[in-house]
């Protein structure tokens, strides 16, 4: 375990057996171009300077690492919340879009396409496109457009064109297919700004590296507060897995840090309405990546379910699939009801209404046995404003 690099893929883009670029030849020149240039660009001083400046002045970083006193008392541990909910646009998603928009500019691209499920990545993409004055086309499942009307309006205000994905099940996976098809049709001037640690190599690594700022800040902030750089536990929710990749990143190669990944069990693992890929998924290819995904025995990709729109992706990123099978991370799952109760509890004990995605991470506190001295860091990846309607319906507020 010591010698393994859990947070970075090998030269072919594989984390263990997961990852790679299973792409049609039409995408080969674009992916190759990205693969050959992304590291050099994002590691350059010029890029770092511009990226960090925007994160500071525009996104509002560093986000606080907040000691949750009442929650700590309840669960008898020292619980810290990484406040990604305080980022501009309300979630961690913008760390990635700021980085990728700078990369797209360096690559000379003029037109930005992206997929979105709940609309958070779409809003974060439309935001940076407005900032950089670039054309922005967002693919969103027709069904999701109806479910997430306020985010559709936000994206339109920010100047993005929203194209409904009418194929397949008309949700996130189909929006992703449509974005990829757009890229096939527009190979010269277009940049595909993917929203999670999924898709063909080098996207999972690129997105993980752009979200790694979360764990880099945690290390410094934790040291200031506790004189320890490493917590005992790091907990995050996993849909595709970008917020988790970000908060795990610097801790994955520190074996003493326990990594907890929380998936959406939906109405229950065995109900047929779940998004717990670690329990229900098998090895396959989705969106150009070899990973664990939910599919029929014939290899047809199935539609996941969760009350949280940000967690209902039918696969997990290849880094996470590797963390699961290598047992580096412990995967847990919580139901809709457990997540909603955890969201309500956080609201009442700490005065913070979390996104339902993030509430999943808090729900496992009920199931973990901490020592009193344990330092636990939870990624509060997004704020709950967008989920008010779900909270209202669930609790008859």
């Amino acid at each position, binding site marked *: 375990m010591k010698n393994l690099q859990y947070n970075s893929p090998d030269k*072919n883009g594989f984390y263990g057996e997961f990852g*790679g*670029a*299973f*792409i*049609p*030849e*039409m995408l*080969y*020149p674009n992916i190759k171009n990205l693969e050959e240039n992304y590291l050099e660009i994002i590691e350059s001083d010029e890029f770092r300077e511009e990226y960090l400046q925007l994160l500071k002045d525009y996104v509002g970083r560093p986000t606080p690492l907040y000691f949750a006193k009442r929650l700590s008392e309840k669960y008898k541990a020292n619980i810290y919340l990484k406040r990604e909910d305080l980022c501009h646009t309300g979630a961690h998603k913008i760390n990635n879009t700021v980085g990728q928009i700078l990369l797209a500019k360096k690559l000379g691209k003029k037109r930005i396409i992206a997929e979105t499920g709940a609309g958070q990545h779409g809003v974060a993409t439309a935001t940076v496109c407005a900032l950089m004055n670039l054309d922005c086309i967002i693919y969103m499942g027709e069904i999701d457009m109806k479910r997430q009307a306020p985010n559709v309006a936000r994206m339109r205000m920010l100047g993005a064109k929203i194209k409904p994905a009418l*194929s*397949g099940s008309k949700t996130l*996976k*189909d929006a992703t*297919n449509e974005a*990829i*098809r757009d890229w*096939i*049709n*527009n*190979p*010269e001037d277009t940049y595909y700004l993917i929203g999670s640690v999924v898709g063909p190599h080098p996207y999972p690594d690129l997105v993980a590296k752009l979200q790694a700022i979360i764990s880099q800040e945690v290390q410094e902030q934790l040291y200031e507060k506790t004189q320890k750089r490493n917590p005992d536990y790091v907990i995050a929710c996993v849909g595709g897995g970008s917020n988790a990749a970000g908060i795990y990143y610097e801790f994955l190669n520190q074996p003493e840090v326990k990594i907890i990944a929380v998936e959406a069990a939906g109405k229950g693992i065995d109900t047929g309405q779940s998004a717990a890929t670690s329990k229900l998924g*098998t*090895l*396959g*290819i*989705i*969106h*150009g990546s070899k990973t664990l995904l939910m*599919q029929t*025995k*014939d*290899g*047809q*990709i*199935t539609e996941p379910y969760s009350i949280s729109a940000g967690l209902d992706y039918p696969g997990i990123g290849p880094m996470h699939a590797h963390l699961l099978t290598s047992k580096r991370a412990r995967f847990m799952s919580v139901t809709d009801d457990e997540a909603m109760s955890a969201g309500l509890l956080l609201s009442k004990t700490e005065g913070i209404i979390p996104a339902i995605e993030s509430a999943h991470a808090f729900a496992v506190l009920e199931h973990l046995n901490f020592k009193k001295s344990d330092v636990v860091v939870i990624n509060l990846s997004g704020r709950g404003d967008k989920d008010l309607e779900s909270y209202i319906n669930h609790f008859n507020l």
Partner: protein
Amino acid sequence: MKKLNTVLNQNHKKLSIYFTAGFPELNDTSSIIKALEASHVDFIEVGLPYSDPLADGPTIQESSKKALENGFTTQLLFQQLHDLKNQCDVPLILMGYFNVILQFGVEKFCSQCQNIGIEAVIIPDLPLEIYEKDYRKIFEKHNIHPIFLITPQSSEKRIRQIDEISHSFIYMVSSASTTGGTKGFGDNELKYFDRISKMQLKSKLITGFGVKDNKTFEQAAANTDGCIIGSAYINFLKENKINQTAEFINQIRNY
């Protein structure tokens, strides 16, 4: 079943038709293949439907969705083709996305293809590098070879690399698009057909994507060995009966 290369070496412009297995009805595979053979197409591309066909436009996506709703499975297709084996002389090739083949089992897939007499498969999302590293041995053990795609954006180096590994033909994607493009071919496409034909590759060149009628067939075949038509035939099947297939083929060839 005739050898694919025997057909490719014949001295006329080849016409191949793609259809989605399981569409319009689950058990139409055999009657479609018979109708295409009776219409003298040179070889047939049988598509395995997939829930998430990235390289396909709306027509093939919809036909795939319908085929899956009809209850299509990979095993059923092999059963249908097996039953047809001795009644059909036209070479068949299979087209499928890699996940479907991976779940069926790569080795089992190759062995069943070999059993039926299929020599070539098109797997659009299995790139050359991964094929060579992880799967080439299994394919070659069963005498199955993949057909690779090239596009107007493919570099000369890439095309030569693909030519080297190809056993029959290279699938020349006509333009930067998913299947079923309706724009027709302009100067850019014609220049690209010409450029590739002048590379003097050892493999035959068959053009696909956006070939839909006699005009586009003539244009794309002028500098290559022939064409594959998919979406236009699927659309024909939506409006017409399978036994009218000859009308469609004759109109492409302008007979």
